[in-house]
Each structure stands twice: as C-alpha cells, then as structure tokens.
C-alpha cells in the first residue's frame, strides 16, 4: 500500500499540479465490461429470489450478499475508476478509512441491538437472577 503511494508520488509531481483534476477515465470498453458484469451480478440474485431455485434461504442470502459485494467492487473499479494512484492514493486512503468506520458502525450496531433485543424479551427470567 505505502509502496504504491510512493511509486505514484514522483510521477504525479512531474506532471505538476495541473493534473490534479485529471482523475483516471475509463474507456468505452471498460465501461461496457463494468456494465455487463453489473447486469450479470444483478440478474443472478433477482432470479434466485424470484425463481425460488434454491430451497435453503440461508444459502440464497449468502449468495445475494456475496454478489452485492462483488458488484460494489466492480462499480468501484469500472465506474468510479478507483485505483491506488488517483490523487496520489488519497482517494483510496479515504475509502479504506470509510470502509473501516462503516464496518465498525454496522457490525457494532447490529451486535449491540441484537443482544439488547434478546435480553429485553418480556417475561424472560435472567438465569443468574437480578
């Protein structure tokens, strides 16, 4: 990671500050690749849920979440043109920071609230006694 940032540094400086606005652009081909992958990654979960091909709901949920994650990465690469070099790597740093915060916030919220719900069930006797 830090090696990437350093490698991007000199090349970026050589272009001067005028290149700051020059975010990497995609080609027609890369946009179409991203679009094709997105269509596929959207169609599969919809088909699985609407068609009831797999009886086990847990498996379907797992596939849907995995494909969503893959599609988010596809969008990041082909549509948002994320790479380790844009803005000397600062966009990627901001993204990694955001992902860490999002994971902590989401996982923390769900974990705490799930256990709170569990422990606040009406009429529930605490095993240890209050």
């Amino acid at each position, binding site marked *: 990671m830090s090696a990437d940032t350093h490698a991007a540094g000199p090349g970026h400086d050589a272009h001067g500050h005028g290149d700051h606005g020059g975010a990497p652009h995609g080609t027609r081909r890369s946009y179409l690749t991203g679009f094709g992958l997105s269509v596929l990654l959207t169609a599969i979960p*919809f088909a699985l849920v609407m068609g009831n091909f797999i009886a086990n709901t847990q498996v379907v949920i797992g596939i849907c979440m995995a494909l969503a994650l893959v599609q988010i990465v596809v*969008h990041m690469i082909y*549509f948002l043109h994320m790479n380790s070099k844009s803005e000397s790597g600062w966009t990627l740093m901001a993204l990694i920071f955001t992902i860490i915060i999002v994971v902590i916030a989401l996982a923390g919220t769900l974990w705490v609230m799930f256990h709170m719900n569990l422990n606040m069930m009406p009429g529930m006797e605490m095993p240890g006694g209050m």
Partner: protein
Amino acid sequence: MATTMTETTPPGTEAPAFWDLDPHEHPPGASTMLGFWLYLMSDCLIFAMLFAAWGVYGAAYAGGPTPKELFDLKLVAVNTAMLLLSSITYGFAMISSDEKRQGAVLGWLAATGLFGAAFLAIELYEFSHLLHEGAGPQRSAFLSAFFTLVGTHGLHVTFGLIWLVTLMVQVARRGLEPANLRRLQCLSLFWHFLDVIWIGVFTFVYLLGVMR
C-alpha cells in the same frame, strides 16, 4: 500539500524568504476531485447509519404488513435496470467529453436524465402505492426505516437530476471548458456512487427483506 523546505534563502539576498520556494501553480479546482470524494465518503457514512437502522428495525413489523406482502420485486428489478442504464449512459457522456464532442455529451446526459427520471417515477409510484395501502412510514419501525433509507437515496437521485439539468445548460451555453469538465467529473462520481448505494438497497432491503 508537500512543500519544499530543502532550499533556504542564501544569506545576503534581498528576496523575502518564503518556505515554499518551488514555483508551482494551483489552478482553480485543483483539489476539487479529492474534496468531492471526501464528501461522498461522508455521505457513505450517512447511508451506513440508515442501513444499520434498517438492520435493527427491518423485522419490527408491529403486527403490520411484512416486506413479502408489500414489495413487488419485478418493479424493483425494472428500477434497478433504470439506474444501471443511467450509469452506463453517464459513462458514455464522460467518454464523449474526453473526445470533446459537445453534442454527444449533451445527448448522453439527456439519456441519463431520462433513465434517472424513470427511476424516480417508479419509486414514487411504489411509495404512493404503499401509502395507499396504509403502509406509510408511521405504520411500523420496519416501514420507518424503509422510507428513511430508500427515501434518502431517492432524494439524492432527485438532487443529482437537478444538478444534471443545470450542468446540461452550462455545457450548452459555455461548452466543454475546464470548469464544466470538472463538474462533469464530480457528477460522474456522485451518480455512480448512488448506483453503488442502490446495490446495497436492492440486496439488503428488497431481496433479503422478501426472504425474511
């Protein structure tokens, strides 16, 4: 910002001593893209909180209607297609702007606007349908979380559309000048970002909601 501090003013010179001796320009908008990216990341945190609320309240039906009874997946699939199509047409607008073809840029932006408007129209139809069935945001915590999350996304798309139309007028009147190119890039990030959020919405709210 990396400033060069290696050279100091030699003794005896009259020139005022500045630390930043390397001459370099800061053209207008030099940091716009990074700044806008940081805005998107903070927006991402807003959506993360709304997704967390959905995760907590998504099954709190309060004896009211459940996602299975309310959501029409065919409609959601059409909606998803609209947003995805608007994403690719915006991509073509960006390619046309690289090639300095103003007419093509305006054409692709118009196509993006139409798909975006179709998305919003379908979403508003869905919302009005839900409200009509008495499944408004006040019915249960599940519906409150649903309307807040999906509504916030829809609001973003609305503002994106306003921005898109404004930008079309600017491009038509002043051409593909640097400032307009920069704005096109910012809206590109914004528009594709909204599509990324929608992936989370259709997966976690609609598909997983129906399976609950």
